[in-house]
């Protein structure tokens, strides 16, 4: 079975509806702009937060991405999806932000990463201990990936994007996008090797997630 599932809890616009909303927002309709924000904000925030791992900074970046997208609606080409365009802007803002953060601290700051992990304690209780342990290991492995690898793998699995779409979103050639995705999988495979002794553990985990 091919494990590719798109986000199914958020409202996703059809291409036609999205095009209409973009046209309306372009002509100054505030309601259309609001709908565009509402239908994209959670997915965009998840993507940005995965990269930055800081709530406040991620919200700032998301807001900036929306403002920039609205600001240049005139240059938006209808052949792209609004989400692709929005994710592209957000990804670039993230890279700039990380560069700035690095130049300020000299290194990536992982303290926020630790503190925000603790917030999920309540959620964790509801799940089986074993499944939770495996999930944590997987996320730990994802966190150790490089930023482009993380972005590629998140867009692939969470957003259901094809390699071509990922390449377009991240502004890189398709071969590079594929290589990021494959290397990310390779590193996950290495990190998790030997962790699962029993086949049933993986089944339990997959059932817990789905």
């Amino acid at each position: 079975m091919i494990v590719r599932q798109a986000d199914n809890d958020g409202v996703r616009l059809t291409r036609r509806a999205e095009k209409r909303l973009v046209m309306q927002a372009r002509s100054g309709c505030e309601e259309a702009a609001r709908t565009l924000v509402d239908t994209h904000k959670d997915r965009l925030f998840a993507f940005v937060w995965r990269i930055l791992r800081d709530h406040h900074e991620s919200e700032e970046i998301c807001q900036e991405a929306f403002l920039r997208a609205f600001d240049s609606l005139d240059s938006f080409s209808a052949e792209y999806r609004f989400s692709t365009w929005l994710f592209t802007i957000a990804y670039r803002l993230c890279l700039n932000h990380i560069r700035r953060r690095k130049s300020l601290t000299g290194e990536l700051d992982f303290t926020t990463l630790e503190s925000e992990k603790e917030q999920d304690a309540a959620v964790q209780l509801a799940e089986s201990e074993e499944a939770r342990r495996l999930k944590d290991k997987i996320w730990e492995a994802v966190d150790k990936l490089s930023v482009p690898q993380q972005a590629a793998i998140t867009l692939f699995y969470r957003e259901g994007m094809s390699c071509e779409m990922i390449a377009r979103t991240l502004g890189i050639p398709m071969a590079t996008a594929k290589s990021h995705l494959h290397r990310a999988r390779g590193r996950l495979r290495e990190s998790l090797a030997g962790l699962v002794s029993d086949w049933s553990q993986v089944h339990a985990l997959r059932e817990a997630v789905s």
Partner: protein
Amino acid sequence: MIACQHAKNLFDRYLDGSLSPSLQTELHAHQLSCQSCQTELAILEACGDVIAGDKQEPVLSASFTDRVMLARRAQVRPAKRRWGRTFLVFGSPMAAAASIVFAIILIAPAAKDQPKTVVLGGEGGKVAPPVAVQKALLGGKELPPEVQADLDSTPQMEAVGFVEDWLAPIVAQTRDTFQMAQNGVDQLEVLVRLGASDANSMLVARWQSARQSAQRDQAPVEPTGDAEANEIDLLDPASPRPASPAVEPVSEPEPAQLFDAL
């Protein structure tokens, strides 16, 4: 049957969804007999499931959309205002300059044909504008006789075509515009006065009813002189409230005076 290493090399293409159906069948066949490949692929698929479905991310603030919309409005408004201001700053002088240039273009050929006007009144003497311009400036009003006599005795500027045909109508039009603006201000003042008097009458009515009710409340209490009867339970909404000290004093100016200054 494909070898283990070959099967592992196919994982990525399989997970990308780009593996041909025949190779997919080969892979499945290999997996049935290879526990290691089966587990490895299952782990990779589980990773995909977790990344896709395990929403660990914190929730976005509820006010996020409102903040974006506010920021967007703030971003859009200065741009509009800038244009307005640009128009005011550059537009009006440019319009004035353009009209002057236009006037010159119109006059220039005519001026050549006209005899040159000599300034009257000698050195340092007064020169009055032509009668049409005087009339336009005055707006048809009669001048006091002594001023009119003085004006009549003053030599008049020669009325060439430009002054009579162009300047006089412009002066008249400008005067009318000013008059209209003045009327607008007057009307606005009347409206403000009306609004103020409405508000005033409402205040007076409230003030009077408050005073009457205060008097009514006090009237039965005074003859008894019972201290307990005067006690008011502040927590009981049915209990009579003490009259507001702001209403009680006689020296307090009536609200009717508040807007008299207008």
